[in-house]
């Protein structure tokens, strides 16, 4: 069983294929986030183990993006615990003793890659420079070394021959694969994907999903927010249904065929 204190896992299937009982690399406990008076995360519990592929799904506005953005502290949580690789980064759970030491956001981010719905490539830089910039800035690589590694990363996503192109000259699917390469080049422990295919024309979705599938096969730990439930069913070791800032139900792939919670059923029957 995973540590999900408030919402017990509904699926009691033995975790046959999944990466076992290793300590979680990312662990959220009672994580809350408010924007002003609006509470958008109402106590999230989630444990992600090394090599695991976690899918977050649910209606728009349910807080999926905010969960991902809390994990790399683009949105600092209002309260609760966020642990990464055993180090506490969250503000803490009310009533519990404060963590003796708290990690720095920059150290957290250097170990977590993020892929955005809108790609967010740097438009004034070529594909190669997009990948090389963080290698120089974060890893302190010299330019030739950074560009060599950037070329390797672009090769991994099949875009080496597009390395000299600017984002404007690439299709949405190619831009997203460059964005994946940019994050991967820093060799993160965990990759976050926030609706990576939602901004793409339908015919370009497959290429990005293929790249993500290859990445999953290398054993990368991945957290994916997606509406591509076919892909989710194929890749999701742990599938988390969110609604209204809460985790409603978690389960393995069976969740898509036989959800136990009526709200999950209602959502799935509306979108499938």
């Amino acid at each position: 069983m995973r540590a999900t204190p408030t919402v017990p896992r509904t699926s009691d299937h033995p975790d046959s294929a999944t990466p076992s009982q290793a300590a979680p690399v990312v662990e959220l406990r009672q994580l809350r986030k408010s924007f002003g008076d609006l509470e958008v995360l109402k106590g999230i519990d989630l444990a992600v183990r090394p090599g695991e592929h976690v899918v977050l799904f649910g209606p728009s506005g349910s807080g999926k993006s905010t969960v991902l953005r809390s994990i790399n502290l683009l949105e600092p949580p209002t309260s609760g615990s966020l642990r990464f690789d055993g180090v506490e980064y969250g503000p803490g759970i009310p009533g519990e003793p404060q963590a003796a030491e708290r990690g720095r956001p920059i150290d957290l981010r250097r170990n977590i890659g993020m892929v955005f719905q809108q790609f967010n490539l740097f438009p004034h830089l070529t594909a190669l420079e997009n990948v090389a910039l963080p290698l120089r800035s974060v890893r302190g690589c010299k330019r030739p070394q950074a560009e060599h590694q950037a070329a390797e990363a672009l090769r991994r996503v099949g875009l080496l021959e597009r390395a000299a192109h600017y984002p404007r000259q690439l299709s949405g699917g190619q831009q997203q694969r460059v964005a994946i390469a940019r994050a991967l080049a820093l060799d993160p422990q965990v990759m976050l994907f926030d609706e990576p295919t939602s901004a793409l024309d339908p015919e370009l979705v497959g290429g990005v999903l293929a790249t993500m599938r290859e990445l999953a096969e290398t054993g990368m730990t991945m957290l994916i927010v997606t509406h591509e439930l076919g892909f989710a069913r194929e890749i999701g070791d742990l599938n988390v249904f969110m609604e209204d800032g809460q985790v409603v139900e978690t389960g393995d792939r069976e969740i898509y065929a036989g959800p136990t919670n009526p709200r999950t059923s209602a959502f799935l029957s509306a979108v499938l």
Partner: protein
Amino acid sequence: MPLANYDWGLIWDYRSDLLNGLLTALEVAVVALVLSLVCGMLLALLRMRAAPFSWIAAIYINVFRGIPALVTVIWVYFGVALAIDVKFSVFQAGVIALTLLYSAFLAEIFRSALEAIPKGQQEAGLALGMKPARVFFSVTLPQATKIAIPNVGNMFIGMVKDTSVFTVIGLLEVVRVTQNVVATTFQPFVLYTAAAALYVAVAFAIDFLFRLIERTMEAPPDGLLSRAVRGRRQRRIQALIDAETASPSASA
């Protein structure tokens, strides 16, 4: 007065005086532009911070946008100099006056350019683990600069024109030189026409220059100039691609 009485040859006779006046005007304007770019950027960043800082910047901007150049330079040269007991040269007073004024205008230009950069750009940089300062200099600033360039060009044209009021403190710029020549030749129409033509020519030149700068910042490079400026970088990347393509690595 018949047209024949205008001695257009005077312009040629006094060309070096007029051009020296123009040179002085340009020197003041260029030094002030460099200082205003720095101060304007700092003000813009202050303006975008939280409450007490943004107020300070907002007050400064609104005050100095409202003061005429003539008043500012008199205030600096005669007022401030007396108040704090330093003697500015006319050149220094001109530079200070323009910098005080145009920092305010440039701050607003930079602020709107910085605000035009989508939030996702900064977030992408931070999510990659880049330091905020590095994100600013490598991601936000280059994109904002390209947006701001045409307006900066307009401001620079304005600065050159505003040097004309520094004739009141005796700066030997275009108007002062023209006044001096007119005092001995009694040909105001000819000489002020020449002065006006100089300002127009400079405005054209500045406009042309800033368009060129803007063009070199196109991504992808557009036109001969930007290819010439950025060609080396492009060739290096292409050479790298060719080398990498030729050597299939283990990770492929």
